[in-house]
Structure formats: C-alpha cells, structure tokens
C-alpha cells in the first residue's frame, strides 16, 4: 500500500449516503436546498455569461445587461473566434497527443518496476520525484531553458513534449505505482516462475490489466496538458504555441475595442476539450483529479 500523502482518496460516492432520514420538507431541508441552489448559481454564473455573451452582437453587449439572454443570437463571433484560435487548437492537439502517450508509458514502467522489482535506491528516487511535484516550476524553468537551448531544441515541439514528460512524471508514476501495489504479488511470482522477464511480464501480464488506470491517467494528462499555460508559453515557441497561450494573446494584448463576444467564444473553444472530457467521463475524472490535484 502506498503511504504517501498524495494517495488518491477512494473516490466512490455510491455508498449509502450517511443520513438516511425520511424525506420531508422541514425548514432545515429547505435551508439545505437553498444553500445548494445558491451555490450552484455561483458556480454556473460564469459559464452562463460565457455562453450567452458569445452569441450576442457587440451592439447588444454595449447596450444591454451582462446577464440578459441575447435578443438576436448570432454565430458570427464563433466564426471569428475560430479563425483566431484554430491554429492554437491544432498546436494543442500536436502537443497533447505525445505528451499523453509518453508520460503514461513511462509512468507505467516506473510504477511496475517500483512495485514488483524494487531495484536498490529506486524508492529514494521516487520520493524525490514526488517532492518535485510540489515545487513551483519557476525553480526549474530557467535551467531547463538553458539545457534545451544547448541541445538545440528550445522553442520546438519536442521541447514542450519533453517538459510535459518531466513535469507529468511524478503523478503518472504515483498512479501506476499505487495501482500495481494492489495487484496480488503471487501473480507476479507465478509469471517469474514461468520464466517471464522484465519486459515480457510488463507487456503480457501487467499492461493488459492496467486499462482502468490508463484511462484515469489519460484523462488527467490530457486535461493537464491542454490547460497548461506557463510551460507552453516558455518552451513551445511561437510556431507551436498552445491554445491557452494564443487565447491570452488574443485577449490581453489586443488594443482598441474589446470584442467580448469573440473573446468569450474563443474562451469556450479553448475550454471545450477538457470540459467535454469532464462531462463525459464523470467519475473517472474525479478519480484522476484526486491524485492529480498536485499539479496546476
């Protein structure tokens, strides 16, 4: 079992709710619902404003209320926004795909080696790696820039992918290590007695049974990489700038009139991928988030 503070809490909500009381509408219950309802409003308000604003014309935004529904919905802001951030969208895709596959593969290998082979010194290394997850990237960022500039890859796609591999490794390793810790050790012993080597047991026994944790890891890594701003800003270079960097450029550095409707549409487009993952993956996302909260 893992003994780290980072361990994912068991994220199951489906056990019986603690208070199994009879439902009746007492003042206390009305209070409960009133609180939850107003909290839900606070949480939904920004999303609501984002969506309605993106369908308004600038005239309507200037004259009307920020919370009012659009009188004449238009998709023109969306077309405009897509023209501005579509390049960033494809950059983000190009960054996210390798930055998801490679860290997951490395995390699985690390977790497997740590859980079953326990090479000398590996646990100390893992402890330092985990501590690294808490350290602000500002501590490491300039030396990494320098090293990559020396290696001639700074400001390129490989550079940003490598940085995501480095900063994704603590969580990915932790996820797989904890997952493999719950696999019965007899299974591993049996595979060893059958003559399986390091890679064979990994490829034929462990990896096929790792699908659930691979899904969790993929959700976390895709969301984390897609939402990253600071690393993309520093390492990706102008040509590979991810969507978040382009979005911030479009909005915070433009002079003149602010096109709020276009900005909001661009914002929704940028948030669309992680939001879609969140809404469709539900509890998988929650499982990952608990372990991955160290990031960000």
């Amino acid at each position, binding site marked *: 079992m893992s003994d780290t*503070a980072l361990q994912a809490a068991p994220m199951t909500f489906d056990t019986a709710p603690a208070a199994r009381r009879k439902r009746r509408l007492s003042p206390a219950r009305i209070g409960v619902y009133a609180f939850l309802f107003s909290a839900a409003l606070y949480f939904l308000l920004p999303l609501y404003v984002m969506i309605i604003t993106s369908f308004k014309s600038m005239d309507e935004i200037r004259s009307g209320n920020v919370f009012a529904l659009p009188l004449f919905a238009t998709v023109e802001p969306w077309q405009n926004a897509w023209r501005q951030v579509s390049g960033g969208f494809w950059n983000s895709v190009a960054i996210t795909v390798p930055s998801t596959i490679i860290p997951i593969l490395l995390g699985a290998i690390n977790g497997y080696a740590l859980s079953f082979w326990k090479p000398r010194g590996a646990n100390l290394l893992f402890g330092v790696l985990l501590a690294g997850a808490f*350290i602000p990237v500002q501590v*490491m960022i*300039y030396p990494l820039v320098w090293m990559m500039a020396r290696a001639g890859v700074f400001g390129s796609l490989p550079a940003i992918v490598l940085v995501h591999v480095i900063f994704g490794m603590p969580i990915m390793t932790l996820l797989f290590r904890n997952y493999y810790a719950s696999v019965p050790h007899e299974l591993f012993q049996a595979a060893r007695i059958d003559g399986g080597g390091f890679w064979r047991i990994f490829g034929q026994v462990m990896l096929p049974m790792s699908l659930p944790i691979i899904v969790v890891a993929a959700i976390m890594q895709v969301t984390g990489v897609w*939402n990253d701003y600071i690393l993309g800003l520093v390492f990706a270079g102008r040509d590979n700038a991810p969507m978040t960097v382009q979005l911030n450029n479009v909005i915070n550095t433009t002079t003149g009139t602010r096109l709020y409707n276009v900005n909001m549409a661009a914002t929704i487009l940028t948030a669309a991928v992680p939001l879609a993952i969140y*809404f469709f993956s539900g509890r998988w996302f929650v499982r990952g988030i608990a372990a991955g909260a160290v990031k960000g």
Partner: protein
Amino acid sequence: MPAFRVNKVTPHIALLPMALTVLVAYIGAALWTFKTSFTASRTFASDNFIGAAQYVRLFDNERWLLSLHNLAVYGVCFIIACMVLGFLLAAFIDQNVSGEGFLRTVFLYPYAMSFIATGLVWQWMLAPGAGIEGAVQSLGFTSFRFDWIIDQELVIYTIVIAAVWQASGLVMAMMLAGLRGVDPEIYKAARLDGIPAWRVYLQIVLPMLGPTVATVFLLLCTAVVKLYDAVVAMTGGGPGTASEVPAKFIMDHLFLRSNIGLASAGAVTLLIPVLALLAPYAYARSRRKRA
C-alpha cells in the same frame, strides 16, 4: 533463489528515464537555480559570484515585498474560503438530497478548465461598468459600486473570488469521499443522544476526516505558491503592480527584465515554504515506515 537473480540490470535500465528526470531536471535544475541566485547573472547565466547580494536586493525590492504580501493575503483567504465552502458543500450534499449527481458535476466543472480561460470570464464579469456592476446599476441601483478589480487595495480579493470558484469543487469532492467513509452508526448514535446535526459534523465527523483535511490543505498550499495563471489572465499583475505575485515576479525577471540572478533568488525563496510544508509529511512518512 538463483532463478530470481537473472537480469537484475533490466529494472535499472527501465528506470533510467525516471533517474534522469530526478537527477537532471529536478535536483540538477534546482541546484543550478540555487547557484545562480548567488551570481550577478543578467540576460545570460554568469559565474560572477556576488554572495547574497541578490537576496539583499530582492528584499529591498518594493515589487517583491508587495508580491509576498499579496500571496499571504491571497493564501489565507483562499485556503480558508475553499476549506469552508468545500466542506459545507460536501456536508450539505451528504444530506441525501435529490439531484446529487447534477450538483457534484456543477461544483466540480470549473476545476476542469484552464484558469487562462476562466480568468477572462471573471475579468469581464468584474469589470466596472460592463459586468456585475453594470447589471445591478441597470436594475435601478445606480450608486452601486463593484470595482474591486481596478482598486489597488482590493484587486487581490477578486482573484480570491475566482480561485475559490475554481478550486472549492475539488475540496468538495475529496471531503465528500471522506464523509462517505464515515460509519453511518455514528450519525444514528448521535441522533439517539439528541445531538444536533451541525454539532455532529463539526465536533465528531470533521475530526475523523483529519487525513483528508490534511491532504486538502497541502494541495491548496501548493496551489497558492504556484499562483500565476489566474493573475496573468485576470489582471496581468495590475492595476500598476497591485496584484503582483511571486511566481509572476520570477517569470517577469527571467524572461522580460533579464535579471536571472534576482529571479533565481526569488525562486529559491519560494522554495522555502514548500520544503517547510513537505518536511512534516516526509517525517510522518518515515516514522510510519519504521513503526
């Protein structure tokens, strides 16, 4: 058993990427930054050692002191608000309410989005004239003022509002998972004894959630130290330098103001509270192992 001794090298080779990451990218880079903080490096790193002069300069720097102050104010408000709101949401959701799945989804979705994206929405909603202020004024309250985001004294609280909105769902999710692990018998026993529900939660259940609370606290603390995206997206550090934070100070001095020595001193300073937080955890961990 000799059969188990074969290819002892392979696991080491397999862990080579991890070893390189730890030794070069984490330890090596951190040591490099530590070394640079004692040099006079400007645009490029130099080996011109000047002792602790950068640290003296750093703590003479108004902007750095202001960013530390902002971080402290932000940290205290953000952590307390997230913990309280997150726990309340979890406790209320735990009251066997209908629509639980929907509420959980609503409370957690901000966490799925980038702060660069959501910060922009908040920036607009908080903008005087246009956003909330304008909406309330158009309802007839023409003297209503809500211009914190352009107020030097209050701007940091607008970042707290947005950050709490983003992170308290996470606290809710972790607290709720903790609550669901509490033995239902406790509620029954407390009810038989006639203890009111709020006291059961505050005095019996909350202490039982100790480990969860500790984990949440650690996560929130590291999030505080890393605060960067929200400030960039919402205020850009403004108005003036009123919402400057250390992470942004370091980034600006690394890449815009070419003062790598000063930025490195800032980064090392930022490392101290993180290590101070991690040390008790590492200690508790090693003790548990020995036991």
